[in-house]
């Protein structure tokens, strides 16, 4: 995972509540056995006017001109401004893979679904939760101001608007640390290998039916 660096990112507003993971990346693209290449199909049903399928040449596909990410002013956006319960639905990690592959590094919303929240951080995407009123105000500011960028400073847990306003946000210490350092969870967990083995041995003694080799079958 790459380290999360402070960025001044162009903001794209997606004014829609309950954006589910089916909407972020429709199921036909889940058939890939790779982690990459999902960006061209991010929000496929909203971005294109036809039905997409895996492996298609996207060059000839009709774009939906009304969709925010197709508008010239939002090209190169790395910050997605969204509404409540973003990422609800399935556990597909293809959703953050698609956001990341497209170029989003930050999503800002009033709330996120739990599984999506975990998945995003594991892929180096910062999710920023702000109050509904703050989100409303950001939507109002982005719309009339072409080229609206937010300075995203994870280290100090704050966003700075073009007018210099500072919006502070909470993020748990462990996730922040992993993001800033670009850490691999598995490597970290395996440092506790002894603790896992000790626990496992006790667990097996207390509840032998949970392990195939100690489960009584006859």
């Amino acid at each position, binding site marked *: 995972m790459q380290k999360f660096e402070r960025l001044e990112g162009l903001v794209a507003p997606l004014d829609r509540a309950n954006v589910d993971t089916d909407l972020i990346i429709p199921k036909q693209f889940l058939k890939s056995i790779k982690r990459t290449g999902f960006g061209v199909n991010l929000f496929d049903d909203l971005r294109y006017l036809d039905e997409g399928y895996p492996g298609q040449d996207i060059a000839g596909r009709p774009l939906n001109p009304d969709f925010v990410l197709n508008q010239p002013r939002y090209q190169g956006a790395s910050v997605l401004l969204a509404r409540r*319960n973003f990422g609800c639905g399935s556990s597909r990690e293809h959703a953050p893979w698609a956001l990341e592959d497209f170029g989003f590094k930050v999503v800002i919303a009033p709330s996120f679904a739990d599984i999506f929240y*975990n998945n995003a951080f594991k892929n180096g995407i910062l999710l920023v939760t702000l109050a509904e009123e703050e989100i409303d105000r950001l939507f109002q500011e982005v719309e009339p101001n072409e080229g609206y960028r937010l300075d995203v400073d994870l280290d100090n847990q704050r966003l700075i608007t073009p007018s210099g306003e500072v919006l502070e946000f909470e993020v748990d*210490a462990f996730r922040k640390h992993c993001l800033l350092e670009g850490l691999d*969870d598995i490597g970290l*967990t395996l440092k*506790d290998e002894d603790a*896992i083995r000790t*626990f496992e041995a006790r667990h097996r003694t207390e509840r032998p039916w949970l392990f195939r080799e100690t489960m009584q079958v006859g």
Partner: protein
Amino acid sequence: MSGQTLYDKLWSQHLVKQRDDGTALIYIDRHLLHEVTSPQAFEGLRLAGRKPWRLDANLATPDHNVPTTIKERAEGNAGIKDATSLIQVQTLDENCLSFGIEEFKINDPRQGIVHVVGPEQGATLPGMTVVCGDSHTATHGAFGALAHGIGTSEVEHVLATQCLLAQKMKNMQVRVEGELGTGVTAKDVVLAIIGKIGTAGGTGYAIEFAGDAIASLSMEGRMTVCNMAIEAGARVGLIAVDDTTIDYLAERPYAPRGDQWKAAVADWRHLVSDDGAAFDKEVTLKAEDIEPQVSWGTSPEMVTGISGQVPDPAAAFDETVQRSHARALEYMGLLANQKITDIKLDKVFIGSCTNSRIEDLREAAKVARGKKVAGSIMLAMVVPGSGLVKRQAEAEGLDRIFIEAGFEWREPGCSMCLAMNADKLGAGEHCASTSNRNFESRQGYGGRTHLVSPAMAAAAAIAGHFVDVRGIDSAAANDPALVKEA
């Protein structure tokens, strides 16, 4: 000192290490795998030169991509016509073989939807932690197991370490008090709960479902309720262990036997919330207020009773909701204040990890017996949750009832719940579906999903539109004008 909740007990029984930063390592007893969310995890292991920590904790089966027609399934993997679907299923087979993980392959009689297979085999036991790269893993909480969906990075993490990095959730209890009316099922209960608390109402919580109406449910019904905890925003749904739980598990292939069974049962009896346990949030519904439910929109919270009507977006309490409702109505092709019973259907799907177990098929068959699917219905299909459910249904003659009524009788898989295989809706088609998500294009591009119980789906198939299953015999449910030509 106040007592512990069921969730608190399960959490502390699996806590390997609590870190100072608020995260914890919890031990995983059962890891279920399917073909869609595992390939990148196995690839990650391979690239890092890692091996699975404990093979016997894992159990795999392909379910999302498998075809469900009898003809195609007879060919095994070769029956999968979509090349990318085929690669995904083959990749699971190869990964399970090379890493040594037990797999129920496509034509194993035990194959099926992973959340039907685990409990059916007794591979899900009370007191376990159960995870799977699938959000409907919440299903297994019906057994008093701590079960939830995880992403692919976490699948890799569990394979490599037998643990998950987690943060303790908050406790929520949803009580359904009283007795459910005739024709009102577990599916109606959970849809009514979601309608009440909303799709984000359970975010951050483990929901324990309790109360007389929950305790009266069979294990199949309890699984339906816990399955859709995620549609209320909660990764975890839980139900306390009782005789129903224990009776269901006795003699299952992966359940212990003999003295160990007795010891296990004694242990499982503690898997209930203590009297006086504190919940961070409590919600109560009256069972008698719940009528058969039908979703009208594009989020599971957009649901109402069969006697109700499609809401007027203008009446919604805030602007975001007004816009969501207006967009949903436009997508669904419905009008404000339209009666639910006036919604005409094109297809009917009985299946999915929510409602494809034997009891679900029995309830649907009861309604379909001796009747005919309406001529206006293009396709009505029944997809059993596993090969064993299919066999059981056939032994009971349910397949004949469905086939004679004009339903297609299929092979097990996820099928049209998410349409990763060939079973899908066309644009604009309305479907009465026993699945769990009515998101835009979930069941096929432009498709319009209405979530209902198996009995309500069967009744809708026969009438061609939604009808109240409670009055099925008196309603014009089998209008001769609508009867399909045999």
